[in-house]
């Protein structure tokens, strides 16, 4: 029975081959840990990936898995999910795979709201090809392919997803196991395309890129944990918050006449707020949590419904009468 499954049921017999210390290990561990909680049989679960370090993921999951080609995982997963709505389909991708070579498939998958759980590992670098800047690398990034600093302006994955009409968008970070687990659960519970940006450290080519967010000393002042219906508060002593100043958000110190009720209360269904939070950059803290979650019919369900309706209306397809449709004549 599915309910009897444990973490190790989801561990495949393949040796994990990421670099020692890679953030991907933490994500793999969390996914393997959380899967039994969903109560879905292993055989009903499929992990589809593209190319890149993150895309090795399916090999390590003892479920069905498909390691495809660069950027195309959302399209392949769409074909699978549409024709097999009974399956629980996950897409594992990275900043290069999902936002550069596969950007087109990702945005269309999101706007269609195909019921896929999309995990985008964002390490802001090309790891597998050994260290070129990625579409999320910051301007000025010095890499082997940008010795004078990158002049590419980066994508903001959260706002790209929101702009593509995603119905569920959240962000977490590799080392925050508990938060990551919560986000995976929320993403899985959502019906439709769930977009999960996981900030992930590449300790070989981009080590420490999220240090402010993950370092014990600094993270409380840099993380803004957003939760639906709760005011935006952060800081080690939970003494800072975000409020509106005119049409812009600003960080404020609580006290001295500023209280919680002056702060923005997060609303997952407010697209404008989600965009604003997605835009946060230093000195504002980095939001982690569910930016946006709304309900919209899924593409796969809508298409299957059309098939059902056609069958109900016209009956099951009859090949003989189909072939003889239109003007036929008999030659004797």
């Amino acid at each position, binding site marked *: 029975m599915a309910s009897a499954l444990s973490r190790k049921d989801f561990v495949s017999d393949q040796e994990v081959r990421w670099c020692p210390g890679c953030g991907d290990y933490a994500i793999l561990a969390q996914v393997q840990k959380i899967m039994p909680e969903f109560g879905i049989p292993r055989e009903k679960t499929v992990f589809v990936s593209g190319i890149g370090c993150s895309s090795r993921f399916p090999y390590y999951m003892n479920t069905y898995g498909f390691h495809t080609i660069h950027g195309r995982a959302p399209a392949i997963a769409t074909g699978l*999910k549409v024709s097999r709505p009974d399956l629980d389909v996950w897409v594992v991708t990275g900043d290069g795979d999902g936002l550069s070579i596969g950007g087109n498939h990702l945005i269309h998958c999101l706007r269609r709201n195909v019921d896929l759980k999309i995990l985008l590992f964002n390490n802001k670098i090309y790891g597998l090809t050994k260290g070129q800047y990625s579409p999320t690398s910051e301007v000025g990034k010095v890499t082997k392919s940008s010795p004078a600093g990158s002049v590419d302006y980066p994508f903001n994955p959260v706002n790209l997803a929101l702009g593509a009409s995603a119905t569920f968008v959240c962000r977490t970070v590799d080392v925050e196991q508990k938060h990551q687990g919560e986000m995976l659960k929320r993403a899985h519970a959502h019906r439709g395309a769930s977009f999960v940006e996981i900030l992930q450290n590449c300790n070989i080519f981009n080590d420490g890129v999220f240090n402010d967010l993950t370092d014990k000393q600094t993270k409380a002042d840099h993380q803004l944990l957003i939760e639906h219906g709760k005011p935006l508060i952060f800081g080690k002593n939970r003494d800072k918050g975000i409020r509106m100043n005119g049409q812009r958000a600003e960080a404020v110190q609580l006290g001295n006449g500023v209280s919680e009720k002056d702060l923005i209360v997060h609303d997952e269904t407010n697209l404008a707020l989600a965009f604003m939070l997605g835009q946060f950059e230093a000195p504002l803290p980095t939001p982690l949590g569910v930016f946006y979650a709304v309900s919209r019919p899924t593409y796969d369900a809508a298409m299957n419904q059309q098939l059902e309706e056609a069958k109900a209306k016209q009956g099951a397809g009859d090949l003989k009468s189909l072939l003889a449709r239109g003007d036929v004549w008999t030659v004797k």
Partner: protein
Amino acid sequence: MALPPEAAGGAAASTALGGSTIRKRGEHRDSVVVRFAGDSGDGMQLAGMQFTAESAMAGNDIATLPDFPAEIRAPAGTIAGVSGFQVNFSSNEVFTAGDEPTVLVAMNPAALKANLDDVPPNGVIIVDKEAFSEANLKKAGYTKNPLNDNSLDKYQIFQVDVTKLTTNALHDTGLNNRAVFRCRNLFVLGMISWLYQRPIESTVNWLEGRFKKTPDLLNANLKALKAGYHYGETTEMFASSYEVPPARIVPGVYRNITGNSATALGFVAAAVKAGRPLFLGSYPITPASDVLHDLAALKNFPIYTFQAEDEIAGVASAIGAAFGGSIAITTTSGPGMNLKAEAVGLAVKTELPIIITDIQRAGPSTGMPTKPEQADLLASMYGRHGESPIPVIAATTPADCFDCAYEAVRIAVKYMTPVILLTDGQLANGAEPWLLPDVDKLPEIKVEFRTDPEGFLPYLRDPETLSRPWAIPGTPGLEHRIGGLSSEDQTGNISYSPANNELMVRTRARKIAGIAREIPATQIFGDANGGDLVVLGWGSTYGSIRESVKQLRGKGRSVSHIHVRYLNPLPDDLADQLRKFKKVMVAEMNMGQLLKLVRADYLIDAIGCNKIQGRPFKVSELTNRITRVLEG
């Protein structure tokens, strides 16, 4: 309704008519080629298709060739905007849409100018006299009206006031001028239907269906059709009508079908026989989109049609659906093939059954999207990185698209491999009568998903076919991972072992080569024991080659014809059959692609006969070339 002869105009023409071909009512003809040509908004495709349906109902053998511009609406009245539809109907077996029209219907000066070169001396040309206005003549590049300057003396010209007659017939319908003008095609169809004694019931039925919700338009179109028919009968312009008796055709139930419709139906039939849903992932592209349209209307079978964001997603979604156990296909034309290539390589490596349908068009690049070509053969064979063999099947006639689509699925599923199905723009939009197949007698398509976990390995092969098991998600105990990385024999685990890589590459190649044992023996039309020359062809050139070879054999020449449907692997006996002939000529609409394969694989010193004009071979072109080779 009968029109007075005075309304006809063009009295001068009647002498030409009465004087030559048309002598008496009901004169017999074996074979007639009619070309309808007009502005792309004039409804010539519709007139042509309905005339074809009428001819099929009359029991003739038929073949059609539409010829339309890529522009949806090129500037009205210009040469670029001319749209044509040619139909060849006969009491004999028909192989092509005909080299040249017996009758050209030209709705405006541009249509006349664009098509005149194809009309043989003494050919019949019917024009809409009123359309030869100063403005229209100028748009077509005429400085003088060709109807008045004796430049058309070698043809039989019939000047009919189509516009005026249609307007008169519809004067009480309350339609505006524009709507009335759009009924001219039905008037012409009615007139030509009378001229060749076609029954118009099928067109009446079609109109009733088409305009079910707009009774005023139905009424107007029916009136125009009947006015044209009665005009033909009443006017003294046409001294007689013609009779083209029914052809001697294999008994059975027939319908008229285009290649694209036949392709769509072949896939449906295969999925039904396989007992699996059909999934089409496709991005719209000319001339392939009709397959998407046809299948999108058949959801109840069940058929999933996914209009993808691009060509890559089209094939990628099909791969996903195949992984899930559907009969999965993608449809495209040349440019799309290039975009799909990488994903097709993934299907080769993961050994998943998908069909990639390339409805070839004239390239390179955007080329001539509405015109046919056969220049994607080598791209289909070799247009992927790495060693990536794929079965390639090519349909020979519009109706054959059904059989080839069906066969493509059968092979894909049996051998767990992607299959490329090649048709082209000529087959796609051309039509012919199709003897409906007996559904119960279609070849078996057996889908056996692996269910037993005992001894399961993703790449453990069937000893005969070398195909791997189809183990779909949802099956308990068979959880496994596949992917594009080189993988170990049997287990499918990632492997960088040099020897293993070679083993896997060679095994996949052996698997595809092994399909040859199922290919029927090569048929020689002509001299079964060899002779002076054999023409080898593939795809849509079938009709032209067969007709040419027939004609030459009628003159006592030792010429034969071999036409292949399986291009990869080629039939095992093909080389031996070709070697029976002193000369081998490969006729194809490209620079010599099958020629290259034959020369390379068989070391046969074959010669090419090539045309890259976005137009099928004329029978006369082939005959001339064959004759020169025989004599050279």
